[in-house]
């Protein structure tokens, strides 16, 4: 099973953000979606998990058409999809452990011992053992992101969606998060979509990279293929040379 995005369009008022996007993420694969800020990367990710409804097109996750599911069916699907938010989105009135337990409480098939084991295992995976009783406000930015990842991983999802997992982090913490993303793929065998505008991260974690530009997919390819592209828009973005993009538009 995989993630299929088929001809998705989404507008907010007069502003068309996504304009006929199609993309397939194969099982076990990690696809990085790159693009400038405000280009619609997070909108695409939220559409995949059903947080936003597209104006046109459909999304298929794990064989289920997200855009056609009832609310209960969507909630059942989301137990198989972990979502890591840009700023972690931890519940700030709860401890780290309570944050991790939130999703597990919905899984009635688990008993208390299994839930505790899942929490422990998820914290171990993100290398935050012993942080269970800390409040989110006591954590650094990098630690918060790791807790956000642990909360998603505790559900043992088949799919992991990362929204800008390394934004605002220093290079060392960025490398730690990238390492964790790779570890999730290797140890849990998840299918991942990583939204980022950090090219170092994208090259490090992705099997394929898709660039979003002007509401459409501009290019899709392996990191090597993307790096070798002659497309001035893509080159301008990955090399951080806006003049190339401007010349091309002109």
């Amino acid at each position, binding site marked *: 099973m995989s993630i299929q995005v088929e001809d998705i369009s989404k507008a907010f008022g007069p502003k068309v953000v996504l304009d006929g996007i199609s993309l397939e993420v194969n099982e076990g694969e990690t696809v990085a979606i790159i693009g400038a800020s405000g280009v619609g990367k997070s909108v695409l990710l*939220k559409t995949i*998990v059903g*947080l936003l409804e597209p104006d046109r097109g459909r999304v298929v996750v794990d064989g289920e058409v997200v855009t056609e599911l009832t*609310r209960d069916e969507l*909630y*059942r699907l*989301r*137990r198989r*999809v*972990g*979502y890591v*938010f*840009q*700023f972690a*989105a*931890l*519940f*700030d009135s709860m401890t780290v452990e309570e944050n991790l337990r*939130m*999703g597990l409480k*919905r899984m009635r098939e688990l008993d208390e011992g299994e839930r505790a084991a899942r929490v422990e295992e998820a914290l171990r995976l993100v290398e935050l053992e012993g942080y269970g009783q800390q409040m989110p406000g006591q954590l650094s930015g990098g630690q918060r992101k790791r807790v956000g990842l642990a*909360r*998603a991983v505790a*559900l043992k999802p088949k799919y992991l969606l990362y929204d800008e997992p390394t934004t605002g982090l220093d290079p060392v913490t960025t490398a730690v998060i990238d390492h964790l993303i790779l570890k999730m793929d290797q140890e849990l065998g998840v299918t991942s979509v990583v939204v980022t505008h950090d090219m170092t991260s994208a090259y490090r974690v992705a099997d394929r990279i898709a660039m979003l530009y002007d509401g459409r997919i501009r290019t899709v390819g392996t990191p090597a293929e993307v790096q070798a592209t002659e497309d001035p828009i893509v080159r301008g973005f990955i090399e951080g040379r806006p003049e190339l993009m401007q010349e091309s538009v002109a």
Partner: protein
Amino acid sequence: MNGAWSAPIAWTGRSALETAAGFGRFGRFLAGAGKAVGNTGTWSRQLLVQMARIGVSSLPIALFIAAFTGVVLALQASYTFTGAVPLYFVGVLVAKTMLLELGPVLTGLALAGRVGANIAAEIGTMRVTEQIDALETLAYDPMAYLVVPRVMAGVLMFPLVVAFANAMGIGAGWLTSINLLDLSTPEFIRGLRLYFLPFDVTYSLIKAASFGFAVTSIGCFFGYETRGGAEAVGRSTTQSVVLASMLILVLDAFWAMTLLN
């Protein structure tokens, strides 16, 4: 010239449309919350927490306001009645005014600030920090988890808080009467009983429940609709308090017209 004339008309039209759209969104929001009531597994665990936060924690401010209102009512009644009306009518005025008007309305207005602002700011912050989206991705219906327990707690706890406030106001009026006025306890109680109707209590509690619904549902709505950052949270909070206060006064008049007329 044309532009100068058309601008106010356009502004009026736009404001009217925005207001109508706002009512529509609020109606849809309430319908969504109503549908989420069936999801008892999600909201039932939150209900007690919210009842404590909305009700128990609001008692000190409600009792403080009621105590001083009772004192002032007794003194003003005595000042007005001197020489013309028997002084035991102080009891009548304190009880009737506390039960029918000042107990529920002053408590409602105070809680519109305390509870309504708190709810709008909390849910608004959860919205702008994507915590509501996080609830969705963890398979929680945010309406059932956030909105239903708060509105239910408001409807259940506002009458309780108002009941205590009424008792405090009348008690403070009695203490003032026997200590500062030339009135004995039996005289105060005589006045208290003179025009007392059990319906007065029911009326007070009905009003309180409706104020509880107004304050919590408006707080939840503005919090839920927040988009943007810290400034938007502040705006939602202010709007929630202003609108809830206005609605309390409208409901106050509505209940007077329907139940006392």
